[in-house]
């Protein structure tokens, strides 16, 4: 029988250490919505999403109340729209109408974000996919809840450098199109390499073509819980440190697994995966940086940071995998700058640079995330950063991503407020040397060799 101490431990995690389930994401296939008529396509999409997701938010709320654990976000991911809209959309403007339909469906079902305004162009781009990509700035400027992602490379296909070049321009155009809002559109746009089909986290969530008609994926969280557990083992050796992270990650993930199963049963939609990511929020005590500093770093960014992050990431997976029947998505620690107060502080004190963040992305999920850069950063430089990150993902067979926000009108030293879960970020220095001739070459970086690993 459960004891009062165990009950108190769980409730303390929830009340004081910010344990929550970060998101229940309902993945919906829109492949059966395809139509050659644009109006019919939009109608089909709206009807299917609102039919399947009508009880998502209320069910989430019900589970929250009954188990006493907060479920922060209820979200939807859909089939990449470049595939769904292919027959009906002849121009970027046509695709924007679909974005608006998605936004309306998201609003009417009560979810805060809907992901899948996406294109998978790891090897090559069809004209439809290019039209969707070119529509992203207008789509994100004219919608509130739609998230967009573009997969520009993979370990199996190499990196599509034409798409990398285009995405540098699109990130800039999106920043311009939403400059009244601190270029907020870029916070809803992520460029990925090795994007998973079942990621429940925004902005990179989409419902891959390998998935069933509808699926429930759950993202857990709990940086605060891990940090608190580590406070109890200060000065102890690495074996103790690792074991503590693992045990705590197990408990956190079990809560996520329970919520996932309940949501799946109540909605009558199959359970997909639990994503083991440690996702920070801007609130105090919910920081991945805080965990790394608790391990013994004076500040995130100091030498030792990459090793600390690597062990954190690995132990979270080791603990989490046993706690869930099926693990997927991104599964690792997130290191978004604007969404993590510890990261923001580290940047402000000069301890954490873009280059160190890049090194950190080699050992964790996911990539350069929510980083504000000067508004005058050239498109080719953004493409260069995307290419670097994609190369890390391609060679190391992991997901990597770039979500940079070139804030129009802002420069190093300024701070930008995005609001809510997106937080605020100091504008960070970008290397001023150019890479335009490299990016302008065009073509593809071929897939890497899969043997002789070093």
């Amino acid at each position, binding site marked *: 029988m*459960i004891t*009062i101490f165990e*009950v108190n431990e769980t*409730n303390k995690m929830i009340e004081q250490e910010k344990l929550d389930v970060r998101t229940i994401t309902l993945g919906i296939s829109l492949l059966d919505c395809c139509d050659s008529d644009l109006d019919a396509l939009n109608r089909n999409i709206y009807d299917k999403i609102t039919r399947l997701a009508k009880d998502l938010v209320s069910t989430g709320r019900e589970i929250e109340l*009954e188990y006493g654990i907060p479920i922060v976000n209820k979200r939807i991911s859909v089939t990449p729209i470049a595939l769904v809209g292919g027959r009906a959309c002849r121009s970027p403007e046509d695709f924007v109408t679909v974005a608006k339909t998605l936004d309306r469906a998201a609003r009417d079902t009560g979810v805060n974000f809907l992901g899948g305004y996406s294109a998978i162009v790891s090897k090559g781009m069809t004209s439809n996919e290019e039209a969707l990509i070119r529509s992203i700035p207008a789509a994100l400027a004219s919608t509130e809840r739609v998230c967009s992602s573009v997969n520009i490379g993979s370990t199996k296909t190499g990196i599509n450098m034409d798409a990398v070049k285009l995405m540098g321009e699109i990130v800039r155009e999106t920043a311009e199109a939403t400059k009244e809002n601190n270029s907020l559109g870029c916070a809803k746009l992520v460029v990925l390499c090795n994007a998973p089909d079942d990621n429940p986290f925004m902005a990179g969530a989409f419902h891959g073509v390998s998935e069933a008609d509808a699926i429930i994926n759950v993202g857990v969280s709990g940086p605060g819980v891990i940090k608190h557990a580590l406070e109890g083992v200060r000065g102890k050796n690495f074996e103790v440190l690792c074991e503590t992270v693992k045990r705590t990650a197990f408990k956190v993930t079990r*809560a996520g697994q329970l919520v996932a199963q309940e949501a799946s049963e109540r909605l009558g939609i199959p359970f997909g995966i639990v994503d083991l990511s440690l996702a920070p929020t801007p609130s105090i005590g919910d920081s991945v940086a805080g965990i790394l500093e608790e391990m013994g770093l004076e500040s995130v960014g100091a030498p030792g940071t990459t090793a600390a992050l690597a062990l954190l990431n690995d132990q979270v997976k080791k603990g989490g995998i046993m706690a869930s029947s099926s693990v997927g998505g991104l599964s690792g620690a997130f290191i978004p700058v604007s969404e993590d107060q510890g990261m923001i502080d580290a940047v402000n004190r000069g301890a954490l640079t873009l280059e160190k963040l890049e090194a950190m992305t080699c050992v964790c999920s996911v990539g350069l995330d929510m980083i504000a850069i000067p508004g005058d950063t050239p498109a080719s430089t953004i493409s260069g950063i995307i290419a670097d990150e994609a190369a890390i993902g391609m060679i190391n067979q992991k997901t990597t991503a770039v979500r940079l926000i070139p804030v129009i009108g802002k420069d190093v030293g300024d701070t930008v407020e995005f609001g809510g879960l997106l937080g605020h970020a100091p504008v960070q220095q970008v290397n001023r040397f150019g890479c335009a001739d490299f990016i302008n070459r065009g073509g593809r970086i071929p897939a890497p060799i899969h043997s002789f690993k070093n």
Partner: protein
Amino acid sequence: MSKTIITVVGKDAVGIIAKICTYLAENQVNVEDISQTIVQGYFNMMMIVDTSGSTKPYAEMVIELEDLGDDIGVKVRCQREDIFTKMHRI
């Protein structure tokens, strides 16, 4: 049907258990086990209850117990047992 755990935490006072149990009895909720401790003047109680005989919607009971706690001046939580067993038992 799974059991429910009700926890009460707050400053000790006369009649806390009585008030909670009266509410439970009125709603046909059966109390199966009670354990309590007092740590530095703070009242800490856990009840294991069975709600299967109750006609009240679960979410409503959660909110009413929370409100009742507010009236008495203690924090009352009502949660399905699974959240604890999943976390603490393999």
